[in-house]
């Protein structure tokens, strides 16, 4: 039975294709060319999607499964199954503050202005601690916001911290660790159980051995 698999073309694309390759799934050249967005790669039909769109395709069931980071899942909270932590694409979701300010300085502000690509994650975090927050949604280069005085701090995904340091920022607190997950549509899990279990086993590889 053919499975439709949504692959993220963004941040974790390289690690995803390496993982697939190591599990014996070689992506056809057309995937890297990046023009065609639906590609047959027996036994899979691959759908190339923006990272944030992967959960959407899977939740609606137009893709049976997909690979996506916890950062994206935490933001959009799709109603899907998450049977496998793939362990790749590791990074941290953090609150970062200007290095000139003391740790947790924002607690003393009446309202903390936070620039982020993750408004839902940000709101949940600050409101969960009883701190009023003004979210400033940005599409990228979030580190710029404190430099320009647009925000007091940022919530963003950090891998090495080099970009933070280059913009005079440092990690104030880690919200959660993010790795890539295999996500599965709820109906597909029932209708294509064997094929999907095969996929889970295959992707687990030696991790479980």
């Amino acid at each position: 039975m053919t499975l439709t698999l949504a692959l993220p073309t963004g941040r974790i694309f390289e690690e995803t294709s390496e993982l697939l390759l190591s599990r014996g799934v070689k992506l056809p050249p057309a995937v890297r060319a990046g023009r065609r967005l639906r590609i047959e790669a027996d036994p899979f039909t691959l759908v190339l999607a923006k990272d944030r769109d992967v959960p959407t395709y899977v939740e609606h069931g137009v893709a049976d499964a997909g690979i996506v980071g916890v950062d994206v899942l935490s933001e959009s909270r799709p109603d899907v199954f998450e049977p496998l932590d793939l362990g790749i694409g590791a990074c941290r979701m953090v609150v970062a503050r200007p290095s000139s300010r003391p740790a947790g300085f924002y607690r003393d502000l009446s309202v903390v202005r936070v620039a982020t690509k993750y408004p839902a994650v940000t709101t949940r975090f600050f409101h969960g601690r009883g701190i009023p927050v003004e979210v400033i949604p940005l599409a990228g280069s979030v580190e710029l916001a404190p430099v320009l005085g647009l925000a007091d701090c940022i919530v963003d995904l950090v891998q090495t911290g080099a970009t933070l340091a280059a913009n005079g920022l440092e990690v104030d607190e880690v919200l959660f660790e993010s790795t890539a997950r295999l996500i599965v549509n709820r109906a597909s899990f029932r209708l294509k159980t064997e094929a999907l279990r095969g996929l889970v086993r295959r992707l687990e590889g030696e991790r479980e051995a």
Partner: protein
Amino acid sequence: MTRRSLLEIPSGVQCFLGDEARRRREIERVAAEVFRGWSYEEIVLPLFDFDDVFTRGGGASSTDGTYRFIGRDGEVMALRADFTALAAKVVVSRLSRRKLPLRLFYSGEVLRYQPPRAGRREELFQIGLEHLGASGVEADVEAILVATEALSKLGIDDAVFTLGHVGFALDLLAGVDDPDERASALEALRRRDRDGLRRIVGTGAPDLTALTGGAEVLEHVRRSAGSGDALSRLEHIVSALAALGLEQRIRLDLSEVRDFDYYTGLVFEMHAPGSGLELGGGGRYDSLLGRFGREMPAVGFYLSLDRVSELLAKRGVSSPEAGASTVRSLGEALKARKQGKRVVVEP
């Protein structure tokens, strides 16, 4: 403030036209006919009630996003967010002298405010039934049989029923007493997040993907976890369904808990190829009626009119109007109508 156009619609509002409107009526008609065929009696439930009917009755998870308003006497009211709690209230208050088991069905919309996401509209059309007063396996099996027939009569012969039992999950969480941890564990279970579950209940947590599949799942679990009450109940149900020729339609998923916290036993979901969303679901809720003052075992399910209709549309089922004869006057129209013809008057 800019003046809003009279044409603007609030989010969540729907309107069905043409083929879609006809198909939906047809689905309701066919399902109702099947339910009546099994001697389920229709009840028409109120569109709103006191809020606590849903919160205290249905449980917290069923009332996320309830549309609430303040009634004339200052009480908090809610638009119905769930039929089962309303039906339970009516059974305890109005139908308490009826002979058991009681078989009831209803159809209509429930309303839940929710952010737009796959298949989650704010106005959800459901057709559902409740079988009340019987605790036996027969009632569970009857509910599934009725659902199978309803889907078949609607032209969905390939629906798959996935069965589980909440007792299995409850056993798994038996040692988790902290309410926050318990909620996280349930969420991990709901997401089939094995690693997340193991972080909470320990490495003894089963491989959740091994808990779904055919009848071999029961065998697998009996060997690894021993046979608890939940397991033997489920085995009874599965073998009864197999004896009735439904083996091919049944799958098992022992990690299924569903969203409503009133389920106490069997839970099931219906899916069919071509739809990425559940067509319906249900289960046994033996403690819900007790919340309204009278202990009574019960089992029931709902079918999603929205998703069944969507699937039928995808499969090319249309509901065309019968042809009409054109008449020139209202007099001619009357004559044609007396003969039962469909007419269109074009003077």
